[in-house]
């Protein structure tokens, strides 16, 4: 049986002017279990709190009801006070008689009656309160960043600078990501490599950063502060410690017919290769599908020419297991496949290319050494047409329903660069809308029109028809002039929609992080927690969460890093004790609760259960209190009532209902 104290606050006249506080005290004393009741002008004041303390000591109170302002205001205050005076903080309940009563009612009798009922409900609840202890779990002071693009690199550097260890896991042979494939960046037109490479070097040289390239996350277990991750380090066939990066092997390699991924397949590479000159680490890998040695057993040229003796054909994939306190997902994006867009003749004509391919064409290290030329015949194009929104804003299943966000800006960039370098080349852009919010963005687009004479036409292109003379006929409409346009072009560039890296689905499943219908990772709150996943300890950086450009990506990377640092700075995590708890005797093991848990906090174990003398192995739900956030979705999903929420238990809420209705 509880011994309950009720403390009614006047809040100056805020409450006392409309609620007869003396009457509430009098009514409280009639409630079962209430052994003490008093009123005071300011319960939250030092003096008010010490009165609570005295009552706890003198009346041996086991539970407290404070009738005052909203619990959102002072619940924490009174919980701390109770704890100070030796009572478990979760034995405190607040009856909100200010915001929900005195401030909205004028009639004293009515307000007093309502305040009394709210007090009763709180008393009824306290009767069923149980002392709760916040759990603790230790934090592994090391972070994992999945993805080595600009998002991952920036996050890693920021975390490492704060003094914590970070591992980057990158699937390809080098870090750098999409940004390393870009030629120039908007809106400043500085060289992408020039600003990225220093970051890559900084990450590689950082004492707190370990980079696992050519590696993939294989398995994740654990929870916030305590993740255990298996990482598959794929066999490079090149000893990373011995290799000097001289490049002789790549020159001598006889297998040179593999499409070069880095150049989007616009030219070929050797079987042993580094993806690009500034790669980090500057150590090649052997593509065993292309390598003659691996296909036929005969060759071994690279091994012969390697002065350092770094080539090792016997290497096997290796799996390492590491512990982390936090995980950042920075898996980036790719462009969508255009197989279904036959009308743009991509794939039919070599001169229809995507914007990312154009980046490579314009880049000095690209397939044309930076010369703008047609990939079909090497001639300089005189008419270039850009088509916007290819696969973006598309509600059918060919494309994506969202705006890819970056295309308007990079197209303006491309147009401007071309007009600048090749003034006799005409550039036409077919657009639906031009979207340029952002600092100096619209100015940039206007410069393309006003200073560089880029011809913008509103209207999506209907089709691109390759002509016998090798040119391309672009059929469209100028919607503003209501005019059919048949434009002959030498090159067509498609602003292809971007989509999250397809691997992200696998990773999200491993992390129990949720993913939306477009495969973007879901943030914990779209406005207030944009860099956190709903799964505690998992953070989001870059395009994996939604389309964004480089400055936004870097900003989000920093934000994610701050969240990680905030987590790793703690030695132990205090967990909210108001978590779900399963009654093993009632649990059916049906998994219904786990299906609705947004945090993956519920797992199942087969346990020997002693149910009033009947012993049997049963599959029962187990809640990880470090992951559970206490929403209660599981408690309602559970058909047998085995799952309950501490602090808001079924019986507590029902007691409040009963008290209000009686």
């Amino acid at each position, binding site marked *: 049986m509880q011994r309950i104290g009720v403390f009614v606050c006047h809040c100056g006249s805020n409450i006392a002017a409309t609620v007869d506080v003396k009457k509430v005290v009098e009514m409280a004393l009639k409630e079962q279990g209430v052994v003490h009741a008093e009123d005071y002008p300011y319960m939250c004041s030092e003096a008010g709190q010490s009165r609570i303390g005295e009552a706890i000591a003198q009346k041996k109170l086991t539970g407290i009801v404070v009738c005052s302002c909203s619990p959102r205001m002072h619940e924490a205050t009174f919980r701390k006070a109770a704890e100070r005076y030796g009572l478990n903080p979760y034995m405190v309940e607040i009856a909100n008689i200010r915001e929900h009563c005195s401030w909205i009612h004028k009639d004293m009798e009515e307000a007093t009656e309502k305040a009394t009922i709210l007090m009763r409900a709180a008393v009824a609840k306290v009767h069923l309160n149980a002392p709760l202890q916040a759990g603790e779990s230790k934090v592994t002071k090391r972070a994992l960043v999945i993805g080595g693009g600009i998002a991952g690199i920036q996050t890693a550097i920021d975390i490492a600078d704060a003094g914590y260890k970070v591992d980057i896991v990158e699937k390809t042979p080098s870090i750098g990501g999409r940004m390393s494939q870009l030629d120039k960046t908007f809106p400043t037109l500085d060289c992408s490599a020039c600003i990225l490479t220093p970051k890559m070097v900084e990450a590689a040289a950082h004492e707190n950063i370990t980079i696992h390239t050519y590696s993939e996350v294989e398995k994740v277990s654990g929870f916030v502060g305590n993740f255990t991750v298996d990482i598959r380090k794929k066999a490079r066939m090149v000893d990373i410690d011995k290799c000097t990066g001289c490049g002789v092997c790549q020159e001598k390699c006889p297998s040179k017919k593999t499409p070069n991924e880095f150049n989007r397949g616009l030219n070929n590479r050797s079987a042993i290769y580094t993806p690009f000159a500034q790669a980090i680490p500057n150590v090649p890998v052997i593509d065993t599908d292309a390598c003659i040695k691996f296909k036929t057993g005969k060759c071994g040229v690279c091994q012969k020419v390697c002065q350092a003796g770094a080539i090792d054909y016997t290497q096997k994939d290796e799996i390492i297991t590491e512990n982390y306190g936090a995980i950042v997902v920075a898996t980036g994006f790719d462009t969508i496949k255009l197989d279904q867009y036959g*009308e743009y003749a991509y794939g039919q004509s070599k001169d229809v290319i995507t914007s990312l391919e154009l980046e490579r064409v314009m880049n000095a290290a690209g397939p044309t050494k930076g010369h703008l030329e047609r990939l079909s015949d090497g001639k300089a194009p005189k008419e270039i047409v850009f088509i916007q*929104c290819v696969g973006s*804003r*598309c*509600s*059918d299943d*060919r*494309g994506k329903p969202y705006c890819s966000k970056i295309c308007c800006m990079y197209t303006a960039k491309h147009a401007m660069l071309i007009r600048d370098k090749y003034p006799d080349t005409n550039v036409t852009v077919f657009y*639906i809308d031009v979207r340029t919010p952002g600092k100096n963005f619209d100015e940039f687009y206007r410069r393309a029109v006003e200073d560089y004479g880029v011809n913008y036409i*509103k*209207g*999506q*292109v*209907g*089709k691109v028809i390759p002509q016998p003379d090798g040119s391309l006929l672009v*059929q*469209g*409409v100028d*919607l503003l002039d*209501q005019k*059919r*346009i048949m434009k002959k072009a030498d090159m067509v560039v498609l602003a292809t929609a971007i989509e999250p890296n397809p691997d992200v689905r696998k990773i999200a499943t491993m992390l129990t992080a949720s993913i939306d219908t477009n495969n973007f990772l879901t943030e914990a709150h779209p406005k207030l927690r944009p860099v956190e996943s709903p799964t505690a300890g998992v953070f989001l950086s870059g395009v994996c969460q939604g389309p964004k450009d480089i400055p936004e990506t870097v900003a989000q990377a920093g934000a994610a890093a701050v969240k990680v640092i905030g987590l790793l700075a703690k030695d132990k995590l205090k967990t909210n004790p108001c978590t779900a708890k399963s009654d093993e005797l009632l649990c059916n093991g049906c998994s219904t609760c786990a299906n609705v848990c947004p945090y993956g906090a519920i797992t199942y174990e087969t346990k020997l259960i002693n149910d009033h003398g009947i012993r049997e192995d049963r599959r029962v739900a187990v809640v990880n209190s470090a992951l559970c956030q206490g929403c209660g979705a599981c408690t309602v999903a559970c058909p047998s009532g085995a799952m309950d929420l501490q602090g808001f238990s079924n019986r507590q809420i029902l007691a409040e209902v009963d008290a209000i209705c009686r």
Partner: protein
Amino acid sequence: MNKQAELIRQVSGVEPLKCMKCGKCSASCPSYEEMDIKPHQFVSYVQNEDIEALVASKSLYKCLSCFACIERCPRGVKPGALIDAARQVVVRQRGQQYLSADEIPALLDDEMPQQLLMSAFRKYRR
């Protein structure tokens, strides 16, 4: 809502509000030059419930029912289906209701617009 506009929406199953006015339909249309009201305008005519003008338009029978606009529309708006439905409205105005495919051969005459015939075939084949 205007009854005829409602009818067109029902018959075509098109939601004009989904249109983002990109013009790809017009850009794809082989009869664009022949039309007074352009394919992308079909949508706004229905949206604005200006069915009289749409029905009076010669575009009604300039549309070849090639359905390129339907295939390529990124929003699934189907201007071709709208114009098909507008023709249906005309048919109904003349007091003729649905045709069964068997009845068509008997009704063929030289004055009947070929386009109507084509779209009837498409309609009943579907």
